[in-house]
């Protein structure tokens, strides 16, 4: 951060640095390394280093690659813009004003994240395509928007903007009204002081969350596959998935293409770093200032309507589509009362304990992943932001990598890494491998959240703890961590949500016979019971939303407002 060339005597904890390094090494670096190795040595899967680079250059010299990479970039950037457009106003309103029903909107806006993307895409298709639910209800369809590049961006923006919303509302909340108020004293109107002061000050949150969205959208498969195929919009992930979706599969090729994705994400990462290091965003100083949320006054109604509108788009429509499908006996029967019924839900409950077991597994894994990833993320971000040396950039870059890798590829990397015959013990084929996979895939979230938060933290707060006799570890646990806790709680809720619905990696690395919610849903689909799958998806969304909400309420009650930002 500031004054980078000065040697400080209050280095962060060495222990934390080691935890971060080792954690990232085990969770991220090793699988990634094996992906690289696989890309280079096509025969590596069977333990042979034969024919290095034989497929590498062949894959990269595919003339179609250029177009796909361009499309990927276009899609990533477009999604980022859509997500920002949806999220920035909502986050600013949520953080700076007393929005009626704020917690409810938070809960609702969390849901797009909990709906598996392939289900959401299906929901959108079934709603908007000709004779879809929209046409059945209102008489018109929006197929031309749905099956277009901007439609894909819009839908992916709607699926991912909650990341931006949550990070940004934390960031804005920390900034508060104080700094823009100062601007207003100096003659800036409300808008100008927002755009000149509050918004630029939120750059850590904005850059971090948009980086996440970018990385997520270039590796996202479900939506571009469902919508883009039809209009010939091919992106790199479709290329990757095609290589491993049917016999014969091409692991080295997909690994190689994944590296292109990683490269793109790293470029985005460098842009984010540059943005954050160019300026100083430390606004949590040693002279705390009270900052209350403002009342919206007459704007309460329009603001509520805006929230309602976005929540309807991002959550309402997909959920309604899911519900409609779940309640329909047959899809071809349409939304006729005679075709509606609780059959699918009844079958779900009657299907024996399988669904329940899957649910239990997912919740268990989700919770553990949230805690582990949250902690490791906070520690990593701390080592990166407050540490020094070139090494921390490597750590930082590593922490975003899994987010840009398609789940299948991460899965393959993890199998390659942990199913080596010479390993004395291995988590492979136990549920722990799923934990490892989830932490790997989801670590980028808490790291970015914590990074955004840490960039706002003045140095003297930690310094004061050190001078007061706290060792580096205690300074972290007593001062730094509590100060970023509100962000971390949000990050952990998101991690929980995604972990309890993650499909692709789960499918690939789950121990034989071990089921999670996502796998269960997918299997229903695979048998052709879209209705049953949708019913399960609906229940899963309901449960994964209610659990974190209950947790927050409990936390709020326990801390009774003494932890900032839990509101």
């Amino acid at each position: 951060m500031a004054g980078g060339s000065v040697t400080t005597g209050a280095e962060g904890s060495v222990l934390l640095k080691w935890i971060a390094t080792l954690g990232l090494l085990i969770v991220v670096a090793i699988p990634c390394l094996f992906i690289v190795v696989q890309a280079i040595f096509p025969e590596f899967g069977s333990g042979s280093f034969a024919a290095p680079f034989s497929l590498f250059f062949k894959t990269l010299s595919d003339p179609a690659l250029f177009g796909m990479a361009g499309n990927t970039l276009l899609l990533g950037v477009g999604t980022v813009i859509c997500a920002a457009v949806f999220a920035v106003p909502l986050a600013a309103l949520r953080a700076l004003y007393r929005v009626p029903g704020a917690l409810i909107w938070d809960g609702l806006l969390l849901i797009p994240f909990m709906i598996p993307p392939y289900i959401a895409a299906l929901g959108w298709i079934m709603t908007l395509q000709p004779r879809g639910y929209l046409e059945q209800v209102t008489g018109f369809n929006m197929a031309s928007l749905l099956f277009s590049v901007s439609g894909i961006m819009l839908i992916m923006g709607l699926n991912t903007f909650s990341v931006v919303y949550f990070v940004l509302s934390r960031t804005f909340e920390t900034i508060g009204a104080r700094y823009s108020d100062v601007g207003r004293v100096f003659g800036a109107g409300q808008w100008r002081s927002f755009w000149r002061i509050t918004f630029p000050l939120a750059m850590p949150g904005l850059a971090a969350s948009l980086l996440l969205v970018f990385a997520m959208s270039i590796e996202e498969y479900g939506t571009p596959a469902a919508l883009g195929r039809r209009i010939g919009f091919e992106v790199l992930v479709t290329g990757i998935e095609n290589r491993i979706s049917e016999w014969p599969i091409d692991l080295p090729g997909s690994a190689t293409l994944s590296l292109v994705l990683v490269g793109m994400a790293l470029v985005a990462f460098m842009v984010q770093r540059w943005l954050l290091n160019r300026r100083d965003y430390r606004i949590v100083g040693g002279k705390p200032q009270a900052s209350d949320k403002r009342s919206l006054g007459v704007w309460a109604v329009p603001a509520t309507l805006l929230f309602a509108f976005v929540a309807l788009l991002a959550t309402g429509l997909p959920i309604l589509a899911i519900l409609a499908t779940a309640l329909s006996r047959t899809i071809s029967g349409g939304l006729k009362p005679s075709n509606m019924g609780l059959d699918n839900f009844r079958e779900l409950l009657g299907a024996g304990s399988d669904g329940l077991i899957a649910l239990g597994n997912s919740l268990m894994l989700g919770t553990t992943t949230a805690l582990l990833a949250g902690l490791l993320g906070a520690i990593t971000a701390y080592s990166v932001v407050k540490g020094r040396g070139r090494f921390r950039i490597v750590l930082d870059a590593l922490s975003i990598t899994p987010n840009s890798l398609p789940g299948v590829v991460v899965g393959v990397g993890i199998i390659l890494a942990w199913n080596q015959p010479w390993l004395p013990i291995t988590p492979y084929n136990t549920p722990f491998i799923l934990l490892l996979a989830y932490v790997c895939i989801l670590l980028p979230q808490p790291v970015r959240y914590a990074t955004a938060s840490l960039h706002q933290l003045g140095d003297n707060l930690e310094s004061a703890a050190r001078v007061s006799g706290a060792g580096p570890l205690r300074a972290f646990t007593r001062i730094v961590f509590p100060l970023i806790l509100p962000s971390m709680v949000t990050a952990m809720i998101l991690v929980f949500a995604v972990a309890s619905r993650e499909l692709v990696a789960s499918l690939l690395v789950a121990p034989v016979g071990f089921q999670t919610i996502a796998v269960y849903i997918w299997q229903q689909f695979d048998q052709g019971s879209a209705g049953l799958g949708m019913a399960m998806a609906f229940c899963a969304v309901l449960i994964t939303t209610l659990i974190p909400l209950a947790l927050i309420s409990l936390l709020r009650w326990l801390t009774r407002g003494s932890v900032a930002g839990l509101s």
Partner: protein
Amino acid sequence: MFSKSSAVSGAPALSLQGVSMSYGAEKVLHQIDLNLAAGEVLGLLGPSGCGKTTLLRLISGLLLPDAGQIQIAGTTVAAPRAGITLPPEKRGLGMVFQDYALWPHMSVARNVAFPLEMMRVGASECKDRVTRALDRVGLGAMAERRPSDLSGGQQQRVAIARAIVAEPPLVLFDEPLSNLDRELRETMVEEIADLVADLNLSAVYVTHDHAEALTLANHVAVMRGGWVEQLAAPAELVDHPKTAAVAEFLRLGCLLPALHDAENWLIKGTDLSLPAGVFGGAEAQVLLPEKALRLDANGPNKLKTEVLRAQVRSTGQALTLRVVGTNHVIRHLTPAPVRAGDVLELSFSPEDLRWFPVADPHH
């Protein structure tokens, strides 16, 4: 953004009537009435936590009063009864915040340029004025730094430069020189005085440094516990403090409790008599002003004191004297070489004494 012509001519630059304000249940400002003529400086003095910053925040529009009304240049900017609240940006102010409140993401120059940009001042003029403002506070060389790479005093000066760069008709200063050394402080006080005089600005100036307030302000308000105890010109304040509390706070001298015993006023608990005052009642507090005391024992009244402590000051020695026969201490600054233990005779005139009732008006 704001224009001097919009002011109702002849109206006071600032006027507060019956302004009250609470944080939650705790009332921190009571019935504040203040008036400030255009071109004048109002000093605000008062102990820590008495509500000075809160008052400035009310004037700037960052807080709203619970009752009363505030007018700036004749325009009512806040009046809860009438439902009027003008947002801060419409009030035409500059302000130095107690915690500086610099924007960390902008360079020093950008911080200072902000008020000008809000007035849509052209780029080259803006640059000139920023340079001038930074030069005024001695930071011309640091324009491109980040605020966080400055020392505390340098940051404070950036805050001053930002407040004055646009030369707004009313400037609010919240302890603007607290982190500066004395030399710089004196220069800055002069700068501010010149600025106010040259541009006919008005200012409210919160400070803990009496000298600063007395030098700069045309009127000084002494606050205590959310009340204005006295509002007066500096000379009046020093010569005729309204209450014992004001005298005490301003460190005007030694406050002695006095009892009217038969026909004499005596220092309570002793038999030291005081010159008769024009004060009714049986009990009083008497101020023995420091500036009325002479070390040359040839005034009309005398007091025997013992030197408790003699501390070096750059302009002489600061003595702590005990009135012999009592526990009351008197402070006195003298260039003469004196040691602890010496017995000194101080003289004063009875007309310099100030008499106050014992009970406090508000508390």
